Structure formats: structure tokens, C-alpha cells
């Protein structure tokens, strides 16, 4: 199936093809531009820490100030002693705050260091050691995958053994893990606390996570047959969402009538176990969004792109070379629903050397029509006194009988 796209082609390789080295450089620079998550996540973490610290300082200082100004002295000796005591307690409260602020500053510094480490990593992309850059890149992506899949131990091990702790976001994910674990234990409080911490930003992105959590809490009350409590809960926490989520609100409050033993399908689902898995998923989505992460694991994204780029109809023929990932079952399975790539220009691979045949290593044609690279046939001729044996048909000819093919 052809689909014509006649806007300027997005591919930089449309004729004339750039030189191999220039092509490699462009591709490398383009692929660095994909690393948004790498620099974004530690920045969001820094932002969150700074915000929390600032809020704490603001709250505590305001409290101390108002407490100091409300201090008064009752007449008599005991009055002044009480005033001194009150002021002394303020001092120790301030000392406590100072300690917390110092801790907070250290946490911020750690995140600053992380942000810098990632910028340094990006600089390493053009430093020339491609193999090292790609190796670390794959490890980062694997850690990301494992953290999203809750394989925390292996993620940590991989990060530590490769010395890439500053390039992955284990602590950010461990923070989320607390919420995920509690939701799996059917506890809602930590998730609600998380929503409160990030209230303004969740509101900005029109998140309804808090609403869903509140609904669940309500459903739990109904399940436990605490109907009066359920009603007052609904008044307090669900009613404010009425303007934006009326339908769902109606559906859920109707459970007061239908109860958990209901056979009515649309209500039954609210009482089911996998409702909690659904909440975990919802939380994860909000968490990813908040930190500027992709919703899918990076590994899946790059695997799909890679498989799409590599997938040709030839991969599914009998003699797909085993160096091609698509010769392997697992990769084929993943590639199945993906589109085939397309070529606008001939690209010929020498059957013998597996090297590309181009102007530097042009294709030579045997009398039987089989084509091999100049390099391979020169080598064969040198070894066998000018005799060429076709490796696929066994036919023998002379080097002088070969003709050059011009492939445009």
C-alpha cells in the first residue's frame, strides 16, 4: 500500500545522499535531541524539592512571627518567666526549622548535581566514543524500563554496577513506589497526600486522579455499609467535583442504592478488585506526566522505532541473516503489528562480506547474474589464481569475465 506524501520529505537522505560521515553526524545530533526526559526529570525533582522547602520555611516563619507578636506579659514574676519560656520555645522551633532547611538545601544540591551530570552526559555524545555513549544509553533505558515495571532491585544493581546513578531516577521512582505499594494494599491516604503536594500542577493538567481516589474511598465506605458516613463523605469530598464530573458522580453515588452485591454490571465494576489496579495505573500516568516522562517505557518506544526501521519483507524470508534482530522470534513477534520500512534508493549488501556495495566497493556481476562486492571477489581471485567460484551456485568463472554494475 503506497501513500504519497509530497510535502518536503522529512528524511535528510533524499538525493543527493550525504556522505556517510556527515550522515552519521546528523543522525547522532538528531538522536541527542530525543533525550528530553534525561534532563527534564531531575529538573522537575529539583523544582518539587525547592517548592516543598520554600513552603515549609514560609509556613514556619509565619507561625513563629505570629506567635512572637501574640506573646504578652502577665503581671508578676511568673508572667515574665512565662514570656521568656515562650520566646525560648520559639528559638528552638527556629533551630529545628534551620536544620530542616539545611537538609532541604542538601537535597536540592544533590538534584542540581544530577541536572549537571546529565548536561555533561549530553556533551559526551559528541565526544567521539560512540560505543561507550550507546552502551550507557541502553543501560539508562533499561533502568527506566525496570523502574516502571517495579523491578527495583535489578534497576538499582544495574545503575550501581555501571556507575550511572546520577543518570537515572531511582529516588524519584522510589517516591512513587510508596504510593503504588499503598494503593496495592488498598490504602488511599498516601496517594491523596501526593495529590495535595502537587495540587496546583495537577489542577493545571486537569487531572482527575484525586476525584478517582475520593470515589474509591466512598465506594469502600459503601462496601463496609457505613452509609451515613458515605453520604457525609460524598458531601464533603465529592460534591466539589460535581461541576466537572457529574456523570461519574451520579453513577457512583447510585451505589448507595445498589450496594456491593449488585448484579447490575455498570455498578459491579466499581466494587471489583481490579479497580485498584486501575487506580495504580492512573497514578502512574499522572506521576509520569508531572515529571515530564513519556507514558510508555523509553525502551518500548525505541524498540518500536528500531523494529520499524529494520523491518523489511526480506526479514520474513527463509534466509534472513542471523545478525538481523528480525531473524529472532521475540523480535519478530514484537515487530508484527508495526509497519514495514521503505527504501527509495537501492542498498546492496554483499552476500560474502555483508558489507555495503557502493562506489568505493562497487558490485561486480558474474556471468550467472550473481552479484558480489569488488572487495570479496578481488580477495577470492587473489587466493585462487584468478578463479571465481560462485558461493551460491558453485559455478566457476574467470575474474576477467566479471562486469561492473552501475546501480543508481
Amino acid at each position, binding site marked *: 500500500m503506497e501513500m504519497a506524501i509530497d510535502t518536503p520529505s522529512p528524511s535528510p537522505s533524499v538525493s543527493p545522499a550525504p556522505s556517510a560521515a556527515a550522515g552519521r553526524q546528523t543522525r547522532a545530533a538528531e538522536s541527542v535531541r530525543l533525550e528530553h526526559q534525561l534532563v527534564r526529570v531531575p529538573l522537575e525533582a529539583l523544582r518539587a524539592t525547592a517548592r516543598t522547602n*520554600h513552603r515549609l520555611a514560609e509556613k514556619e*516563619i509565619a507561625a513563629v512571627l505570629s506567635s512572637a507578636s501574640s506573646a504578652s506579659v502577665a503581671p508578676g514574676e511568673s508572667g515574665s518567666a512565662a*514570656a521568656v519560656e515562650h*520566646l525560648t520555645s520559639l528559638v528552638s522551633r527556629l533551630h529545628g526549622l534551620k536544620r530542616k532547611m539545611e537538609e532541604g538545601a542538601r537535597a536540592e544540591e544533590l538534584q542540581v548535581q544530577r541536572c549537571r551530570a546529565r548536561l555533561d552526559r549530553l556533551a559526551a555524545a559528541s565526544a567521539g566514543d560512540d560505543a561507550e555513549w550507546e552502551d550507557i544509553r541502553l543501560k539508562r533505558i533499561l533502568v527506566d524500563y525496570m523502574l516502571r515495571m517495579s523491578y527495583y532491585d535489578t534497576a538499582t544493581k544495574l545503575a550501581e554496577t555501571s556507575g550511572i546513578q546520577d543518570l537515572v531516577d531511582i529516588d524519584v521512582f522510589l517516591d512513587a513506589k510508596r504510593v503504588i505499594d499503598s494503593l496495592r494494599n488498598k490504602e488511599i491516604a498516601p496517594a491523596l497526600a501526593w495529590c495535595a503536594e502537587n495540587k496546583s500542577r495537577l489542577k493545571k493538567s486537569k487531572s482527575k486522579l484525586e476525584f478517582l481516589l475520593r470515589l474509591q474511598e466512598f465506594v469502600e465506605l459503601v462496601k463496609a455499609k457505613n452509609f451515613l458516613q458515605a453520604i457525609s463523605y460524598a458531601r464533603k469530598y465529592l460534591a466539589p467535583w460535581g461541576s466537572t464530573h457529574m456523570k461519574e458522580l451520579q453513577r457512583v453515588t447510585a451505589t448507595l442504592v445498589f450496594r456491593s452485591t449488585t448484579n447490575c454490571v455498570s455498578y459491579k465494576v466499581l466494587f471489583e478488585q481490579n479497580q485498584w489496579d486501575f487506580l495504580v495505573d492512573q497514578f502512574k500516568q499522572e506521576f509520569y506526566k508531572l515529571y515530564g516522562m513519556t507514558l510508555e517505557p523509553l525502551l518500548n518506544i525505541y524498540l518500536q522505532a*528500531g523494529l520499524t526501521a529494520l523491518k523489511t519483507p526480506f526479514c520474513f524470508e527463509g534466509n534472513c541473516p542471523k545478525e538481523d534482530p528480525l531473524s529472532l522470534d*521475540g523480535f519478530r513477534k514484537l515487530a508484527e503489528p508495526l509497519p514495514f520500512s521503505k*527504501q527509495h534508493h537501492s542498498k546492496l549488501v554483499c552476500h560474502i562480506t555483508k558489507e555495503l556495495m557502493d562506489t568505493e566497493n562497487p558490485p561486480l556481476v558474474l556471468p550467472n547474474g550473481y552479484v558480489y562486492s569488488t572487495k570479496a571477489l578481488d580477495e577470492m581471485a587473489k587466493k585462487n589464481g584468478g578463479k571465481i567460484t560462485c558461493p551460491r551456485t558453485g559455478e566457476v568463472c574467470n575474474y576477467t569475465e566479471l562486469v561492473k*554494475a552501475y546501480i543508481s
Partner: protein
Amino acid sequence: MELDSLREAFDRVVEKRVLSSTKVQEAIDQIVNEVKQVISKMQMMDTDSMDSCDHSSILAELKAKLNEMVTLNQLEGCQKELNVALSKYLKVLEKSFNTDVSKAYRNVDFEDSTVNKIIANHFYRQGLFDLGDSFVHECGESDETYLKLPFQEMYGILEAMKARNLEPALTWAANNHDKLLQNSSMLELKLHSLQFVEILTKGRRDDALQYARTHLVPFASLNKAEIQKLMACLIWVDRLEQSPYAEFVSSTHWEKLAEELIHQFCSLLGQPSDSPLSVTVSAGFQGLPTLLKLTTVMAAKKQEWQTMKQLPVPIDIGPEFQYHSVFVCPVLREQSSDENPPMLMPCGHAVSKQSITKLSKSSSRPFKCPYCPSEAVASQCKQLHF
């Protein structure tokens, strides 16, 4: 990428963060100071007088001072400056990066268990056995670790080679003698040659000779030149490093041989020598920028991305990812197929069979090559096999 502008914008963030943090610390210190002063004043007065009015006035003075400090406003201001710096940095990030790399992602069944098996075997084939085991334990795909044992054997052989012990390598090569020859690999001979040189460098000339007779002679019929070269080493014992045969004792020679062993080992296992996961992800990084642009263009034209069977444009990835020969007929701009194979005209230019039918108007009359002045007739054209 303008890394410098990124760094510059981030430096501003850091500067404002430090400022905000020190301002908080200073404010706390200042308040503590004021309060402490008042406390000591009150305590001093306690001994002299009992006048609560004085105390009250001191407290009033404290209140006034604290109010004057306008601490909270200052903190607020610092935080605002920090936020401004942060938003500026975010803007630079948005300009420098592709902010949504998942735009080209297809919402299709991408089975976790298949991906997990690929990862487990990736760890094993990289020799990261602890990580592999830990991963398998956590993801629970224990029945798909078929690469663990063979790769443990391979890394055992390589470890021994690093310690300059060739025995395990030689044993493996001997066990796979026939298969290696089928692959037309000279690995076994090369290993024996290296062992011969090793014995020689230890100064045991007789042993070396004996070794050559037993292990090298069986290869002599096919590799006369190679073996003659080796035997000449006998003359240079003690100073092989300075001899024309120095290559045999160099460490790069060992490394090359280790590489070849990996290649052959994987080949006999039916596995690629490079991790297919690494290869695919690298191809993904190279291909994704084009895919992202393509989805943008298609979305603008309201074309369906999710179900398309073939990409409408080529993806530019490096030649290292080219595993299949693709012939695109330059006349029809179509990939060749069994029905429409590539043909070679006598001038050396290649076009598809259908193009030749078109050019010759299905006749046996000569037609002009579209790429040069030469003429050809259909019967002179030869089918090509890449």
C-alpha cells in the same frame, strides 16, 4: 544542540536557588538573634526590677522589629526569581529537545513477557549473569533463559584467555572442529598457532616443535604459508618482539582472536554476535527522529498512522543496519520483487524487468538506456541476484 545556552540557563537556576536558600537561612538567623536579645534583656531585668510594663515594651519593640524585617516578602521574592529562572530553563529545554518522543508510538500489543525475555537474554549474552539472574527473579520469566549456560561457557573461555590460558578455547574449538571448518573459519589453527608461540616465548623450543608436529601439521595441507611463517618463529626465540613476527605476541593479536572466538561461538549457537537488543535500540535512536517528523506531517494531513502497513518515506539509518539487499528500480521507483526482478543492461546499468518491457515496448527492437547513450535489446539483459 546548543549545550552552552542550556548550561547558561541552568546556571541562572542554580544561582537563584542558592540565593533563595541563603535568604531563608539568614532570615531564620536574624529572627533567632532578635528573639534571643529580647530573652536576655528580659532575664537581666528580672534581677533588677519587676516591672511588667518594661517587659511589655520590650516585647512590643520585638514585634515592631520583626514586622520591619518583612522577611516573608523577601522570601517570596527570591522564590519568584527562582521560578522565573526555572521557566526560562524549561523554555530552552523545549526548544532544544523533542519533548514528546512517544508521538510515533503505536498502541499495539507489545507484550511485557516478550520484552522481558529479550532483556534477560541480553544480560546473559553480555556476560552480566548476576544482573540476568536478578532480573529473571524479579520479572518471573525463569523458563526463557536459554542463553545463560552457553554464554557462561563462552565467558569462561574468554576469562581464561585474558589470563593467557588457551586450554578451554582449544578444547571448545576441537569439539567444534567440523562446524568451524564448515563456517570456513581458521579459528582452531589460529588458537594452536598462538599456543605454539606461547610455548616458544617461554623458551621451550623442543616442546614448541613437538606441539607444532601434533597440532599444526594436520592443518598444513590447507594453510602452508601460515605454517611456514610460524615455523620461522623458531629462529627468533627470545626476541620475538623485535622479529618480523612480533604480531604473534602482541596483545591486540589476543584481542582479535577473542573477538573471532565470540563471533564463531555465537554463529554456532545461531545467535548474532552483537546483542540484538543493542542493535535494535540503536536503530531506534537513529530512526525515531524521522518517524516523529513523519507522524507530524501525517497528522496535519489527517492520515492514519496507527494502522499503516508500510511507511511512505524511507528512514535514514546507518549502513551497519542494512542486512538485506534492496534494489529500487530507478525508472519505476519501486522495490524489486520475484515478479519484477532487477536486470542488467549490456552497458552495466540496472533497471527492473518491467522497465525493460516498457522501454522496449515489448519488442525485440533496440532501445536506449535511460542513463547513458548505449542501446540494448531485451534479450541481452540479464537477471541479477544480490
